[in-house]
């Protein structure tokens, strides 16, 4: 059967159109939502979700085509401009006009890497949409949320499909904007009390932090453009490979400096976007956004984009850059993993684990294992999305309680959620036969291969030691999370957490909530409280809301009435799951259907995501031989970056069999060991009942008190940069944002100082004119008093002086004008004569 005739063969004629369709559908959805979102039935959520379903299915189809091509050993690299003539000339309407000057033109570029990424984005975004239907329903600005989230998807799709660095950057920034709007989603909703204040700061923090990285990326682009006069990836790869080929030796420091610098700047973009140390600060605070948004950011879009960029630009990096990348990645992995062990907020644990996993990917790419890194990104996308959505489900079930100490025993109440979350946790912990194991193992394998093959040694040693450590921590805190959340029995209100305002989290603290939370939700607390007394049944939902309405009625502060109405309304307008989400408040409850469907899809992918890449399921059981996995063959250097770099780095890949086997064995043992170790410790500490876990943990933390404080304080990076967000619910006024002894504080000081300079120094010219005018004003004032008793009091600040100047010049007194004229003329005459 010929490759062309098969329906899975890539057909430029219409497949590019399909891709384009998949790419614009979310945009269309956005426009529809913005235009008519409110008026659509159910505010158009199903509409957008179905649109996303179409996108997802297209991406899956295309992905299948790439699989098929890989099976038949066909090169899978398609460029709409070259093959179908589909160009978008951006700067100049035609290349003819641009004569001599580079014209920036965009086209769709589709290769195995893009295929995998696109599939991930499509599927995960679809699941997130589905999840949001159940999770966000009934919250204010519902349609805006869907509009933004689908534009978010649009941006990521564009980033994956763009064939040149500039357009990648454009969608990259567009994604930054959408993250700003989505993380700040609650900042327009005062009824979400704590999140309202938090999001107000977090969205800005996220945008600015990533903006720093974006600027670096821009500079890197400019540097490469300056040398190569092009933004197209294919061109850049070719030229960089030729450039590197001139320096065959792999010794560091012997590569063109500009290339190293440019590469570092591009990596700066990754540092910002995918939250590498030290610009990771924005990601934990991104939790201020709704949970689906966190899932998007952590799995499919934002952070994935940074790693995707590294994959795209891999051939443009000199080994020096790669070493830096590896080091930074490893540091991030350890750093974040340690912090993750101390977090109590369910989502915070996941956020730190994301950062640490990103560290894994980046480190892998830095170690030359671009395949391993991207592989891990793909698998991670699935199970991390699943984890976040499950966490969202748990939070939703526990009435927006996020503190794990207030959970426990949720397994009984939310079995499906528990199953999904457990599967994903196992996957991320790196238990064999689960997807996470393959990818993580590949990364550690890469490190050992390097060591045994004697390349990149410095960074490789670091990574080979650090990454397993991080993996151990990962396994530990993930299972810690599982135990704390699901085992033992439900224990609401163990500690007071700021999330409590969000309804009947713990009713015994209800009054405290009323003390400081926003009114809409204070009423909500009432509702649930009152309802608690009525016992738990759907029948009492209506009275509960009557209660809410009344509480709202005699609400002392009359404001954000619309918040109330929104809440009252959607509480009423809830369909079945809406009801139990608010009715059975006291104990957790399983989430509504859309959420569960989304969870199951992602959990399935999270578990078996690794196996898709393997050549055949049977052979894949011998997992240490995934040197010939589909992913590797398709995303291998030949198909991805062309022949030369293939030759150059094939040497890096193909170490001798002995070393390879050695490496496989070592890596296998190491990853198994660390995973089981972490899980064991977690079980020892947290797995055996809540009180005991508290005792043990308390003892340990007491023993290593100092270290614990530092780690729990996130190593005080935020404080150093001055971006720590302190939201004190007791204080009504906005919390102070910039501490003085920090980067931000310093820059603010600089700004104020420059403002002072501007007023007092740069303005000195005007000051001078002013002073001259002032003295002149004074002189003429006396002169005026003596000669013409007009009133000129040019005294005071130079502003008044100008006033007096004006008054002086515009006094409208003919005689005064005449005086000036005469004495001016005389002065002139005298001057002329004397000179």
């Amino acid at each position, binding site marked *: 059967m010929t490759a062309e005739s098969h329906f899975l063969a890539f057909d430029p004629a219409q497949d590019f159109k399909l891709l384009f369709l998949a790419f614009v559908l979310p945009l269309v959805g956005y426009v529809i939502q913005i235009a008519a979102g409110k008026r659509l039935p159910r505010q158009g959520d199903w509409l957008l979700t179905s649109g996303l379903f179409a996108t997802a299915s297209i991406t899956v189809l295309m992905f299948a085509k790439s699989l098929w091509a890989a099976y038949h050993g066909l090169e899978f690299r398609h460029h709409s401009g070259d093959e179908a003539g589909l160009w978008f000339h951006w700067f100049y309407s035609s290349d003819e006009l641009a004569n001599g000057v580079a014209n920036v033109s965009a086209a769709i570029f589709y290769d195995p890497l893009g295929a995998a990424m696109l599939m991930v984005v499509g599927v995960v975004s679809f699941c997130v949409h589905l999840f949001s239907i159940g999770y966000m329903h009934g919250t204010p600005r519902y349609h805006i949320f869907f509009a933004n989230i689908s534009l978010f998807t649009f941006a990521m799709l564009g980033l994956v499909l763009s064939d040149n660095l500039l357009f990648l950057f454009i969608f990259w920034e567009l994604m930054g904007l959408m993250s700003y709007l989505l993380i700040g989603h609650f900042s327009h909703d005062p009824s979400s009390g704590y999140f309202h204040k938090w999001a107000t700061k977090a969205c800005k923090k996220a945008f600015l932090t990533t903006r720093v990285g974006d600027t670096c990326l821009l500079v890197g682009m400019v540097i490469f453009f300056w040398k190569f006069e092009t933004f197209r990836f294919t061109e850049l790869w070719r030229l960089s490979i030729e450039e590197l080929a001139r320096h065959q030796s792999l010794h560091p420091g012997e590569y063109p400096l500009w290339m190293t610098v440019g590469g570092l700047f591009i990596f700066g973009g990754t540092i910002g976007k995918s939250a590498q140390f030290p610009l990771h600060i924005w990601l934990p605070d991104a939790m201020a956004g709704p949970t689906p948004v966190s899932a998007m950011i952590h799995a499919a879009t934002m952070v994935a984009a940074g790693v995707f960029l590294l994959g795209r630009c891999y051939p443009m990096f000199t080994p020096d850059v790669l070493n830096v990348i590896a080091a930074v990645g490893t540091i991030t992995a350890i750093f974040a993993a340690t912090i993750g062990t101390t977090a109590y907020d369910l989502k915070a644990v996941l956020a730190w684990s994301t950062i640490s996993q990103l560290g894994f990917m980046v480190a892998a790419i830095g170690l030359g294992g671009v395949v391993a890194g991207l592989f891990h990104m793909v698998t991670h996308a699935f199970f991390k999305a699943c984890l976040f959505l499950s966490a969202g489900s748990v939070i939703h079930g526990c009435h927006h309680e996020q503190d794990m100490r207030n959970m426990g025993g949720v397994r009984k109440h939310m079995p499906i959620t528990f199953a999904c979350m457990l599967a994903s946790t196992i996957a991320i912990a790196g238990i064999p036969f689960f997807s996470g194991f393959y990818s993580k193992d590949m990364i550690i394998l890469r490190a050992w291969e390097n060591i045994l093959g004697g390349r990149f040694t410095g960074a490789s040693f670091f990574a080979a030691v650090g990454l397993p450590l991080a993996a151990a921590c990962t396994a530990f805190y993930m299972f810690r999370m599982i135990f704390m959340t699901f085992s033992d029995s439900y224990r609401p209100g163990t500690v007071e957490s700021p999330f409590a305002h969000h309804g009947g989290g713990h009713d015994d603290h209800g009054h405290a909530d009323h003390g400081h939370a926003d009114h809409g939700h204070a009423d909500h607390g009432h509702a649930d409280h009152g309802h608690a007394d009525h016992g738990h049944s759907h029948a009492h939902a209506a009275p509960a809301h009557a209660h809410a309405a009344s509480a709202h009625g005699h609400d002392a502060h009359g404001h954000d009435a619309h918040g109330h109405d929104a809440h009252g309304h959607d509480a009423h307008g809830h369909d079945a799951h809406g009801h139990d989400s608010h009715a059975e408040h006291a104990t957790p409850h399983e989430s509504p259907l859309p959420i569960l469907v989304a969870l199951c899809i992602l959990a399935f992918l999270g578990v078996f995501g690794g196996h898709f890449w393997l050549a055949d399921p049977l052979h894949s059981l011998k997992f240490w031989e995934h040197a010939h996995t589909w992913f590797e063959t398709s995303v291998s250097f030949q198909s991805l970056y062309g022949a030369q770099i293939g030759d150059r780095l094939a040497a890096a890949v193909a170490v001798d069999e002995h070393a390879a086997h050695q490496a496989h064995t070592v890596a296998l043992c190491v990853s198994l060991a660390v995973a089981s170790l972490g899980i064991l410790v977690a079980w020892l500490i947290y797995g055996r009942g809540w009180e005991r876990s508290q005792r043990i943990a308390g003892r340990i933390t007491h023993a290593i008190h100092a270290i614990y404080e530092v780690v729990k304080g996130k190593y005080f990076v935020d404080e150093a940069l001055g971006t720590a967000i302190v939201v004190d619910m007791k204080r009504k006024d906005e919390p102070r944002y910039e501490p003085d002894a920090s980067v931000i504080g310093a820059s603010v000081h600089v700004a104020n100082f420059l403002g002072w300079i501007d007023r007092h120094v740069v303005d000195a010219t005007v000051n001078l004119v002013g002073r001259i005018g002032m003295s002149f004003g004074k002189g003429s004032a006396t002169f005026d008093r003596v*000669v*013409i008793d*007009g009133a000129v009091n040019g005294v005071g600040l130079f502003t008044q002086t100008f006033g007096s100047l004006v*008054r002086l010049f*515009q*006094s*409208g*007194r*003919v*005689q005064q004008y*005449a*005086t000036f004229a*005469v004495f001016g003329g005389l002065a002139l005459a005298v001057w002329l004569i004397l000179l």
Partner: protein
Amino acid sequence: MGLGAYIAVSAALFALGIVAILVRRNVLYVLMGIEMILNAANINFVAFNRFNHAEGSQSNLDGRMFAIFVIILAAAEAAVALAIVLNVFHLFNSVKPAEADLLRE
């Protein structure tokens, strides 16, 4: 007397005219000052014309002609100025230029 003397007189007259304009606060003094200045100019014209020794200067009467024009224009100017004075008086009930300061707005 020589040309210098006439020029000196006209200069002094000119200065006095200016003083008259600047020093007094009554519009009429401005008017008189202007007349003085014009007179000073006239004296200069005529004097220079008179002491002009260029060839055929005897038939050259430009200076005097100028003087005549100046006088005529002075008449016109005085008429208009007086009208203005009356207007100012109507507006401000005063003939002090210091109070006619509408220009400043």
